[in-house]
């Protein structure tokens, strides 16, 4: 394979190289850059004043606040769950390990709409726990808890998926060394495991956060679209768009797009820092590979 590559790759004619590169660039331009530019152009099309008003009107601010709040709850929880799951899967061999691994991937496999429906089925008015919850005046569906639950479900795999290959590659030896040296389980985790996975963890958290803020399908099902109350930013964009309020919709969409750009930059920075820190290459290779997912 490598022979093949090294023999042919450098000898490709200039024409082939240029046309391939050009093809990729055109594709990227058409499908990635152009839409992004269109979003910003549309957002600013009606003037800066309209833009500013659209993103500072109470409903938009409320949606922005809710989006941040949901992410602020869901991401730390998924960070803890993700580390626990990755730890269990990477460091131990037990019955049902394969099943657990599959379950972690479940949210990636099912449509977000289905994820949302599951919660409606469980906690909705006519759901399994619906009557029980209503008696106690606990609101889950069409309220913050439902949105948080749906977001947690959808974003669960990101941290764990990032950490499992990293932790598997690192093995158990350093933890064993710490234990033999007298460290407690907690000391071992804080002093040995965590520093070894910190870049991977941060990377996973960034991806998890990006998905949490941008999630539409699952949240849409459980939110109820109550303006100023249960609308997250993506839902708010949709409502505005459906109301033919294009300028405002694109203004809010540009906020989401910017969150995405910030995520990309943060990802790059973390990746670069990690490559600097992980001298033996294990971590950074995995990080670089993780970006392809």
């Amino acid at each position, binding site marked *: 394979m490598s022979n093949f590559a090294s023999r042919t790759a450098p000898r490709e004619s200039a024409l082939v190289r240029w046309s391939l590169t050009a093809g990729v660039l055109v594709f990227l331009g058409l499908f990635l850059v152009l839409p992004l530019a269109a979003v910003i152009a549309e957002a600013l099309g009606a003037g800066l004043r309209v833009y500013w008003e659209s993103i500072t009107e109470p409903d938009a601010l409320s949606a922005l606040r809710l989006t941040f709040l949901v992410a602020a709850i869901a991401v730390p929880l998924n960070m803890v769950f993700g580390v626990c799951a990755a730890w269990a899967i990477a460091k131990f061999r037990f019955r049902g390990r394969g099943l657990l691994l599959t379950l972690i991937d479940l949210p990636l496999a099912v449509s977000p709409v289905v994820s949302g429906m599951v919660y409606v089925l469980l906690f909705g008015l006519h759901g399994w726990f619906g009557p029980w919850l209503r008696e106690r005046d606990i609101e889950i569906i069409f309220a913050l808890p439902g949105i948080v639950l749906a977001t947690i479900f959808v974003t669960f795999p990101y941290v764990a998926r990032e950490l499992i290959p990293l932790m598997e590659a690192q093995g158990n030896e*350093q933890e064993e060394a710490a234990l*033999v040296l007298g460290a407690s389980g907690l000391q071992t985790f804080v002093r040995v495991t965590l520093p070894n996975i910190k870049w991977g963890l941060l990377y996973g958290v960034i991806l998890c956060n990006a998905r949490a803020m941008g999630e539409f399908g699952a949240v849409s099902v459980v939110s109820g679209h109550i303006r100023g109350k249960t609308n997250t930013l993506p839902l708010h964009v949709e409502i505005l768009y459906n109301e033919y309020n294009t300028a405002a919709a694109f203004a809010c969409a540009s906020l989401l797009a910017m969150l995405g750009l910030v995520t990309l930059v943060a990802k790059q920075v973390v990746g670069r820092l990690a490559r600097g820190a992980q001298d033996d290459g294990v971590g950074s290779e995995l990080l670089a590979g993780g970006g392809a997912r």
Partner: protein
Amino acid sequence: MSIRVSNITKRFGRFIAVDDVSLTIPDGQLVALLGPSGSGKSTLLRIIAGLEQPDTMGEKGKAAAAIHLAGAEVSATKVAERGIGFVFQHYALFRHMTVFENIAFGLRVMPRATRPTKGEIAERVNELLGLMQIDSLGGRLPSQLSGGQRQRVALARALATKPSVLLLDEPFGALDAKVRQGLRKWLRKLHDEIHVTSVFVTHDQEEALELADRVVVMNRGRIEQEGTPDELFHRPATPFVAEFLGQVNLIKGHIHNGHAILAGNVTLPHNAPGLVTDGRQARLYIRPHEIELSATALSHGLPVRLLRVRLAGPTVKVEALGPDSQTLDIELSHDRWRQLNLNPGDEAFARPSDVRIFPDDYAI
């Protein structure tokens, strides 16, 4: 501190890694666990450390597994509390910590009540850096060290908490031959200075024989033989030990009147041990340097034809073809070889000066 393990069995699925092993390691000695890969030596070491638990379900009639350190039973004691220093095969250095922090780790994680002060920790680490002759490396990261230096850091880290037992898993396995030689001598010297009871695992018989006070030879989860290097080399108790330790020729023969008879009707003068009775097939182990070579006929000498001669090295190595097409490796001094005035292709006579005889049905 002495180590005593009794009736240790460990299975991984169907594979029996350690099979009912009992072993005593006297205080202050440097002991080698020697065996091929899969012989259970590393598992036994990890069980002593507490990194693996021995199987508790003993079979009927077998005594319960027990591990004693300095006379105290520690099976239920946690790894952290056994007071053991462990050097891992690939060192397992904390790669995000400097050499200094690696060595200080065991001291820093001590409970507050017994933890030394910062100054005391620094003093102990510097003392160890000196002992390991790596004074200048305290500020480096493990990735900036050579294999031999990492090995020393791993050792210093294991010794920092003053363990009463030091366990080393293939301590030289990941090093190249030259570095290995040097570190081997150095470790022996270190042990003579600090006298901590040490057990190391190795698959290299030369390493075990050169370094250890006692050697425990393991095969298929069991102990084949245990003794000083001298005992093992000169008086192997089983064919496995005879074959595993050093170069050896295996020749088949049979027993008649208490003596071994080889192909070509050559009788050896050596007495067969009691368990090899008359009429039985026997395996004879003869070391290359324990064969006398002569150009003229010798009593009890095998007629051989010389095939190949290698002169490079401290001794002359001759490959000869015996009766019944058995090849025989012979080693002799350069002086003796010149005296003999023989060449490849010549006929000669080979007489074993020492031979170990085992019954042929012995399973290896």
